[in-house]
């Protein structure tokens, strides 16, 4: 691919698979598999119970498998908020702070979780049980305020009920 071409045009062409002749063969080989990339990233990130991030070795393996330069794959992974290249807790708590959730009490849950877990957004508890993330919308505004713990949407629970759930999860063997 012409290195001197305009960046925008280059990116556009590449993204559409409309690459130069020299590159088209490689695109052909990888194009069927590459649409499964995000799916694979999800699978590897959650390969075993309690594993919630993608390790450097795994990333290198995926890069090889898909024929994507590691630097490019790194850029792809970092673009999406659900993937983490850093160790996270065995359970990932996603607190929704969209407008609907905010006006229905998301900050009350946030303050409570911060106190209970002793961490702020983007952090992991010392025992490695929980990571706390604040997200922009879980798409469940009819039950605001919402949180997600791993793959489960949690709505309409009191702070005490959330505590009980977290206590149970923290004790679980992995």
């Amino acid at each position, binding site marked *: 691919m012409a290195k001197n071409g305009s960046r925008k045009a280059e990116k556009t062409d590449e993204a559409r698979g409309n690459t130069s002749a020299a590159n088209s063969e490689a*695109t052909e080989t990888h194009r069927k598999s590459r649409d499964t990339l995000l799916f694979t990233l999800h699978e590897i990130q959650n390969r075993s119970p309690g594993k919630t991030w993608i390790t450097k070795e795994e990333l290198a393996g995926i890069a090889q498998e898909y024929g994507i330069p590691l630097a490019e794959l790194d850029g792809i992974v970092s673009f999406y908020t659900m993937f983490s290249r850093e160790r996270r807790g065995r359970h990932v708590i996603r607190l929704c702070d969209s407008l609907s959730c905010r006006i229905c009490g998301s900050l009350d849950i946030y303050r409570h979780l911060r106190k209970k877990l002793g961490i702020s957004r983007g952090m992991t508890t010392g025992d490695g049980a929980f990571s706390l993330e604040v997200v922009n919308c879980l798409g469940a505004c009819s039950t605001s305020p919402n949180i997600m713990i791993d793959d489960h949407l949690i709505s309409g629970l009191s702070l005490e009920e959330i505590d009980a759930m977290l206590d149970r999860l923290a004790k679980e063997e992995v």
Partner: protein
Amino acid sequence: MSNMQHITGFATLENPLDIESFIAKGGFSGLHRALAMTPLEVISEVKRSGLRGRGGAGFPTGLKWESVSGDDERYLVCNADEGEPGTFKDRFVLEHAPFLVLEGMAIAAYATGAQTGYIYVRGEYPHVVASLSSAISRAVKAGYLGAHILGSNFSFNIEVRKGGGSYVVGDETALLNSLMGNRGYPLLKPPFPTEKGLWGKPTIVNNVETLAYVPYILTQGAEAFASIGSPDSPGLKLFSISGHIAHPGVYEFPMGTTVRELAAAAGGILGNLKAVQIGGTAGPIFDTAALDYPLDFVSMRKAGGALGSGALVFMNTTVNMAHVLEVTMRFFAEESCGQCFPCRYGTRQLAFMANKIASGQGRLEYLDLMRDTIHVMVGASFCPFGQSIAFPLESLLDRFGDEIVSFIKQQEFLKEAAV
């Protein structure tokens, strides 16, 4: 089924994955009708119905289908990357009436000559990914998808893909980029995806709700659909209603229904209404005058907004608009894809100022600086994301600027009084 119910009528099935009960309710009869017509006749029927895309932009669906040209290898993508805050209607459709979406996709694929379909589901809906896969295999088994659908020469397969968490990917070109395993950057149009989409092949991208209304047009006819709602925006619409309202949820009403009627249908406002955001976070925040607005694409444009995804977030008088400003600006800063400078930097500046204001360290000059910033972003941002911030920001400053000024002054006074 009543004329004023389509999706919500199908959504009452006890087990949404029970294909027999879906068929018993009239499911897949639209596909039967379509296969008895030529593809061009199906497109013409959809064009005459006046159906407009329900993802937000409101582009006429029939025109989009008609504009597919070029290569014979074609793709159909169902956009289920519902990321617009305040919007949860596509989740509702996929949870409660998945076969309706599959039927709409099969009809769309038949009309446009697509052989392969993808449903791109946002990563935050993992249960939908699982249930859709199950729905697809049941539909294949029953002959509504796969090879030689209903004994015809038409074959069409659907695969489910899962997103990784990104608002911008809701844009159709960004979604295709993401589907091809890239960063979800939006692209310049033209070329439109209908000419060059997935892997350079012609691709139709339709929203979940749009596709779910297609079977209605085939079974009831274009005229029946066109007779509902507003002349320029016909048909029914799903509205996502949340915030300070008695019964938040998804409501199906004709286009042109007023905000007041919807609020009443949802049990009324909790407390005294102060503001309502219409169309998602990228939509304006209106004051109580919005109660009389008819909700359709044309009327909302006239009101200085957009119908968008059909989300309504009601706010009562307990809400501090400085906090609404902060939530909204932080959203844009976090979701900017970073591809272009005006948006990447502008959203961060706006979020910084909004955060200062909400946390009591705001300055009055921030309000002018915010207007200057958005002026540059509207003119210079690469894609509609960076431009759309003008809607919520300018509406907040125009309608609730006095409150924000008063809030800033009050905080300044408190600081001085403390000295």
